[in-house]
């Protein structure tokens, strides 16, 4: 999958040569679809292969910003509580029923997954988008130095829509 990561490198801001800053276009290129969706109910069950709790969350797709996704789908994440024991994956997103979100999704073997865990679930407040902890990543400058990446500008849903539209074939 190294070619996939290379796509990320090419998508980062111009100064970067080796950064993996997952800005919207970079993450979209890793995704099957980017959608505006409303989070539904979640259920926890034992994964048939891994024998670990998985949380499956219903998602109602309101709009596909990039790629294609069905109107209703289920996002699967490791984690959840079964029989009094909890498994959690820190760094993964928490999808809360009723929330309207932008999701970056990958479809693998028929299932739907967040492309890059918590980086793949953005909150929506009016037209503004809230991204998790994206303010202070480093990226490698042309001379090899690790430098702080510039602040990610506040993004509106409308501008994200335009960004992703430009990526679509």
């Amino acid at each position: 999958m190294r070619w996939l990561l290379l796509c990320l490198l090419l998508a980062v801001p111009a100064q970067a040569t080796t950064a993996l800053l997952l800005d919207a276009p970079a993450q979209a290129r890793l995704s099957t679809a980017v959608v505006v969706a409303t989070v539904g109910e979640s259920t926890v069950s034992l994964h048939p292969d891994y024998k670990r709790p998985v949380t499956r969350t219903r998602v109602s797709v309101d709009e596909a910003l990039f790629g294609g996704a069905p109107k209703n789908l289920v996002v699967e994440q490791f984690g959840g509580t079964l029989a009094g024991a909890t498994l959690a994956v820190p760094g993964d997103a928490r999808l809360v029923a009723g929330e309207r979100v932008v999701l970056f999704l990958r479809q693998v073997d028929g299932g739907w997954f967040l492309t890059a865990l918590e980086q793949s679930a953005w909150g929506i407040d009016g037209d503004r988008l809230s991204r998790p902890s994206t303010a202070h990543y480093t990226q490698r400058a042309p001379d090899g130095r690790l430098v702080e990446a510039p602040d990610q500008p506040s993004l509106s849903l409308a501008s994200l829509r335009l960004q992703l539209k430009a990526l679509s074939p």
Partner: protein
Amino acid sequence: MILWLLLPLTASAWAPLTTCAGAPTAWPDGSPETRFRMSSVFVSDEVPAPTVAGAVRIGFDEWGRPGCSNFNVFQDADAFGDPLDGENDDNLIGWYESGWPAQLGAATLAVTLPVWWEDDCELFSADMVFNGDDHDWVLGPPGDWYEADIQSVATHEAGHWVGFDHSGFGGSSMQSLYSGALDERTLTCDDTVGACALYPSGDDSCTDDRYCACDQTCDGGTCRVALGDDDDDTEPDPECEGPGREYDEGEPNDDPPASFEISDGDATIQGRIDCANNGSEYTGDHDFLALLPVCDETAVLTLEWAGGADLDFLGFRGDGTALFENQTVEQQGPIQSTALLGAAATALVVCWEGAEVDWTLTVDWPPYRTISSGDDDGDDDDATEDERPTTGLGEVDGRGCRCAAGRSGWSALALIPLALRRRRTG
């Protein structure tokens, strides 16, 4: 649990995975479950198994190094099994060289899967899996962007195994995003505080400052509260009791030749800095400036120096997030940044390479002074009079900073050589 090839620079401190009625996630003291095994099947393609096991072992041991922590884990015999198989109870650690699960996200380096009882947060199982599908693994400084140091990542993952969530504390091994270097191999004082909170031993022995609380230093093998800022005075305070101590920091600008002037609400600070780097980090002076403006205005900060050195200039808000940065290659000043200085902020002057050099930092409130139109090097740091930021607060009164405190502009401004807790960005 997830370590990315990125690095956050925020300032929040250690945190447990969660709490249950106030109790943090932690292994029971002295539990026989605090052991791990290396998988004999899911192994790295690139690094020999004994080398991998040794690096992982060191990563775990790091969390037991603070004397105030009684955390201890032992390595059991290797086991045949899949670390992601939830049916084993071996606390297995292994490598996925193919078939990295989609649930764990693209580009993730490694994941630890701790399980705890919901009623008391007592950990009873934790497996760890490294992503060899998307990354190459090395023991030592990564030579390319897709490589990662086993020991650094193992130390981070061991932190999750111990019971910690991600931390935003600068330089912490528990930052969620991998530095791309070896920084995560060692704890910071904040990691130590966490380890000792979850697994207190009552001991205060130490072998290094980082194995003490953040307001302490390791003095003669014992953690002791640091005396003052320890680097500004050449003589001990006569008010102090006990034996005298000598301070020789060797900083040419700390005692107190760094000076500032306030004029019409503006400030000028002068200092001297030496330059060095190791290829990825600044290793020379780090001149921190605590900026405590009473204004809520946009200021123009101009760093000037004579030349012959590549100075860089960064600013941080009180919460540690970036306010501005200027890290382009500049062999001569001035370089400028603008920032809305509405609260306490920190500026950092560092020098990548060149000769030791005097610098002058001007903090210019509206109405802005007429200064150099820039360095004309084609970059975007060449502010001119006409391009100065607008305040957004209406017209200025022409007497300096327009704010509640009148024209003074600054309630205080001092050169404070803060302890460098922030990860050095290079």
